[in-house]
């Protein structure tokens, strides 16, 4: 455990070295938020309720998406593919550490840093924009939201890590494309652009089978009090299913991947 805490600390120190990179990344994140924020704001200039959401609910959703991007979707596992394709994985195989736990520690550091910045940015933006927000007072719903975020962090890590492991079978230098595609699908299907329940019912039902909506849309809808107990329980079941499947897949893919790994580039 101690060594992974050291990895976490070292990753945090990395951010302090490349401060400008991180600040710029956060600035970009705020810009992405502003696009959606103003888009929804203008929609509610002439409408009280749109797609079953009122103004405060939708603006809370937009700000919530922004928060969960920092907490759930932020990940360093995008670098896994590069390490495998360059042969840098060999350096880790020789060390007495778990490659999965190593990357999870780095992910945690990334989340800590992102959330730290997010809190400061959120205070400033809420002060400047003064959006009407939903403040949930039901402690049970807050707990359920936090629990879904907790599982979501592991789920995102598993899916993203698995994508990185696919590089074992992809020729050198071709891992960037799938990652780009994955990020676009992830953003849309997790509800990063809009709440997924505004989609046609059939499409929405289909998306609910996939793991993506449980990363952003599901926790935020619990927070907003839009889901009943059965729907929350159902969501947890699907999340747990995907978590077990993805963990199992990581084991299988890792073992099979190591057999084809030839340390190209080393």
């Amino acid at each position, binding site marked *: 455990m101690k060594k992974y805490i050291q990895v976490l600390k070292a990753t945090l120190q990395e951010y302090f070295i490349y401060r*400008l*990179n991180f600040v*710029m*990344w956060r*600035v*970009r994140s705020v*810009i*992405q938020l*502003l*696009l959606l924020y*103003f*888009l929804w*704001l*203008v*929609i509610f*200039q*002439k*409408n009280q309720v*749109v*797609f079953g959401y009122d103004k405060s609910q939708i603006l809370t959703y937009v700000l919530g998406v922004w928060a969960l991007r920092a907490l759930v979707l932020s990940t360093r596992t995008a670098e896994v593919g590069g390490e495998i394709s360059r042969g840098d994985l060999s350096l880790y195989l020789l060390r007495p550490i778990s490659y999965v736990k190593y990357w999870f520690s780095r992910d945690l550091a990334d989340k800590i840093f992102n959330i730290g910045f997010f809190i400061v940015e959120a205070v400033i933006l809420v002060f400047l924009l003064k959006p009407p927000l939903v403040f949930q007072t039901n402690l049970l719903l807050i707990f359920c939201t936090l629990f879904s975020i907790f599982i979501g962090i592991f789920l995102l890590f598993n899916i993203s890590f698995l994508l990185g492991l696919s590089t074992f079978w*992809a*020729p050198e*230098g*071709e891992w*960037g*494309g*799938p990652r*780009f*595609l994955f*990020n*676009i*699908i992830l953003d*849309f299907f997790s509800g990063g*652009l*809009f709440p997924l329940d*505004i*989609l046609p019912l059939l499409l929405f039902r289909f998306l609910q089978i996939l793991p993506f909506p449980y990363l952003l849309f599901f926790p935020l809808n619990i927070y907003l009090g839009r889901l009943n107990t059965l729907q929350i329980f159902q969501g947890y079941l699907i999340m747990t299913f995907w978590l077990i499947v993805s963990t199992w897949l990581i084991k299988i893919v890792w073992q099979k991947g190591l057999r084809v790994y030839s340390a190209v580039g080393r």
Partner: protein
Amino acid sequence: MLKSLKKYLKVWYLMTTASFSSFLISRFAAVVLLSGKLLRFLFFLFFLYLLVGKTKVLGGYTLNQVVFFFLTFNLVDILVQLFLRGIYRFRSLVVSGDLDLILVRPINTLFRSLVCWTDLLDFITIVPLIIYLIIFLANGQVAFSPIGILLYLLLILNAFVLALAIHIIVAGVGVITYEVDNAIWLYRDISSMGRIPIDVYMEPVRSLLTFVLPVSVLMTFPAKALMGLLSWQWMIFSFLISGIFLWVSLRFWKYALTRYSSASS
């Protein structure tokens, strides 16, 4: 003049051929990247249809007008990506000192650094986009006049000049600070706010996007001109601001070169 133009065209052609060849080496990656670009476009278009289809108007614009703004945003964005892709490789030129090899050649350094790496994927995506735009307009989805088309094309060209100026400034910053990637991604994120008409944003964001980093001139004004919604004062402002940006960028580039340390060469 003609001889010089021919030389530059030949250099661009040779470099573009090399760039296309490099894309074709990784066909799988190219197909996946292309799918990603296409999906990103379709997802946002779908979102606009869903949202504005329900509310009927967005900031006073009809659904078709909003879609046209989005299509114009994509046209400008892809044009800039297509011809100024070299900026993404510029940092490595500076950090490695390889910029020396370009500086000593009898060719404009900015041209060689910024323009000579045409992205095949953008080339592939811009063709169907233009066809879609033409069909969209031919079907009468938005009202326009022949003079509107002329102004649209002129303002698209003007937007490209403005984008070029911004890329030159970023390159200059790169020479001085060795930092390019964040600056260019920041530009891309800010310009992505032009996916919807800038009029939608409230003050002071709207003014910032018009006067400080003129995303309006880049993305919104061409579409407004075609639909006859742009006054002549704003048109003059557009050309003026692009001219000022270009002048400032070239001055800044010259200054940046005096600070070039030729590190690692």
